[in-house]
């Protein structure tokens, strides 16, 4: 067990981009987990939980009582509507990642299934799927989402609802990537050998093709999650998200809507922007790190 861990550590030292990405991920997870002990998630990230417009401070006293006995800590300050931005950071991060994961996983699952079966079975089915994916890929995703979200009405959108909407476009990319991979794998001699070993089509799919797809699936997952988070932030910043929730994109919407910069409330913008930047750097690093894992495999196979 220890030697396994040591091997992983040595690998991370070589593949430092993956290391940084995973490091940020672990940091965010810890931040969210540990931070959640210090807040009340039902109250603090929502309006009127705290006095408004408080800059970041560790000891806050109301203006009327400059030397109060129990100063409250607002490490990230509060916003114009009284939300504790520290609580917003903790709950919002998790919400944003949840949307990304949810939409990404559904998109991958659906896209992989379509791409796989399309490549494996071919024929009219393949031609139809291919045409559909090609056409849909040319339409900008955000456009589709804006149309759908705005026609649903902003009151009815929830966090999970957004994820489902985004999943509607998240499957396009994976379908194409997986299809082309399976097409090339299908002709490989080891698939012929598998047939000569007595394997049927289902066995070949699960035991011969899917294991070799795992690196591509991993990379495509990261890409899908990144895209989903992007999409959710875009939608939310346009005002098409769940406006009451403390999701990071929604926070940005309110920042713009309430002219936070003009009012000098810089910390209100700094919180979501910093976290979003961290999330994207993390996803980027992970995808580059995964690329390095995927490529030596491919090179070895040649």
């Amino acid at each position, binding site marked *: 067990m220890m030697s396994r861990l040591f091997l992983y550590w040595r690998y991370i030292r070589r593949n430092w981009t993956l290391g940084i990405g995973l490091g940020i991920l672990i940091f965010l997870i810890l931040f969210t987990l540990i931070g959640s002990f210090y807040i009340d998630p039902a109250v603090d990230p929502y309006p009127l939980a705290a006095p408004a417009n408080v800059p970041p401070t560790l000891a806050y006293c109301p203006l009327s009582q400059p030397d109060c006995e129990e100063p409250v800590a607002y490490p990230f300050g509060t916003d114009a509507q009284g939300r504790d931005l520290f609580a917003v950071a903790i709950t919002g991060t998790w919400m944003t990642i949840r949307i990304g994961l949810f939409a990404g996983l559904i998109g991958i699952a659906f896209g992989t299934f379509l791409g796989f079966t399309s490549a494996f079975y071919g024929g009219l089915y393949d031609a139809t799927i291919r045409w559909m994916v090609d056409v849909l890929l040319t339409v900008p995703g955000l456009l589709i989402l804006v149309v759908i979200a705005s026609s649903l009405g902003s009151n009815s959108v929830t966090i999970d609802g957004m994820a489902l909407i985004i999943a509607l476009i998240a499957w396009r990319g994976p379908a194409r990537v997986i299809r082309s991979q399976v097409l090339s794998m299908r002709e490989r001699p*080891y698939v012929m*050998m598998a047939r000569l*070993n*007595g394997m049927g089509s289902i066995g070949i799919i699960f035991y011969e093709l899917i294991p*070799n797809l795992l690196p591509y699936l991993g990379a495509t997952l990261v890409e899908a999650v990144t895209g989903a988070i992007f999409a959710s932030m875009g939608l939310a910043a346009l005002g098409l998200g769940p406006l009451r929730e403390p999701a990071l994109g929604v926070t940005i919407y309110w920042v713009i809507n309430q002219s936070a910069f003009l009012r000098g409330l810089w910390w209100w913008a700094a919180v979501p922007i910093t976290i979003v930047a961290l999330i994207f750097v993390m996803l980027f690093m992970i995808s580059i790190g995964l690329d390095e894992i995927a490529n030596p495999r491919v090179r070895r196979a040649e």
Partner: protein
Amino acid sequence: MAKLLELRNVTKIFKGGTVALDDVSFSIESDSPGIVAIAGESGSGKTTLGMMALGFLEPTQGEVLYKGKNVHNLSNKERVAFRKEVQAVFQDPFAVYNPFYKVDHILEVPIQKFKLATSKAVAKAMIEEALVTVGLRPQEILGRYPHQLSGGQRQRLVVARAMLLKPQLLIADEPVSMVDASLRATILESLYTLNREFGIPILYITHDLTTAYHISDHIIILYRGSIMEAGEVDPVIKNPQHPYTQLLIDSIPWPDLQRRWGEKEIIIPDGAKAAEPNRGCKFADRCLHVMPICRESPPPLFQPNQAQIAACYLYDSAPTLAKEEVGTLFSSKNLAYSSPG
């Protein structure tokens, strides 16, 4: 005399119009467990023929029969038997391995799927015995990934797999062309042993006539999808009847200083690329002995002597052999020339 494998008037045309095989018929009989070489250059159709025999390609016209049944029309039970009984060794020693698994995978899976062993211990013993037979040491091979072995080791392992499965027919498609010279003889020897000691008929597909001569009993010469000549390997190589075979043999660089190559003139067909298909003999445009009838209709299989057939009008005074009978040529009972060893 039952037919183990039969190709009946098989034609294969690929998308784009390439005719890979043109009305080819031959068979391997159950009682002639010899080695039959399918020899030809690239574009001759030999690889396509191998893929058809394995049931991986469907003929455009004609049928491929295994033990009398069309291989694309088998019941589930028959299909399982077909997959078990007809095995292959392919050209690329790396691509046949799934890089995700250790090399043991290609030995363990068929044992399990075809229920060849009653327990894991028995399976392990079978695997080790097969490895030793081809000259590999189990402790050096088992548990490794494909990229950790050399090309020669990987190919020998594929042959060991064939030994383990004891198929009824083995298709070897260019098994040594991607292997180093020093290992070729070893691998060919393993195939030879498979045939002579275990009685497994082998279809040896190759472009290299020297190895074909070395290992086979009979040979079929293919050119652009048609059979040009066939028969016992010794007379075909030493006394070729068909002009194409003659040109081929003359062009082979034999590793023998006494035998100089290239005395025959080579005719380059008109135009930079291959000529348009004519309705007659495929070799007409390059043949030194071409006659008007050669371009009119494809020549039947004439039999100038007991051991050879040639699809050439030069021999039109000889009796013809029906296409369905091509298998009878390969019976080891009929060897007119006895080969040593």
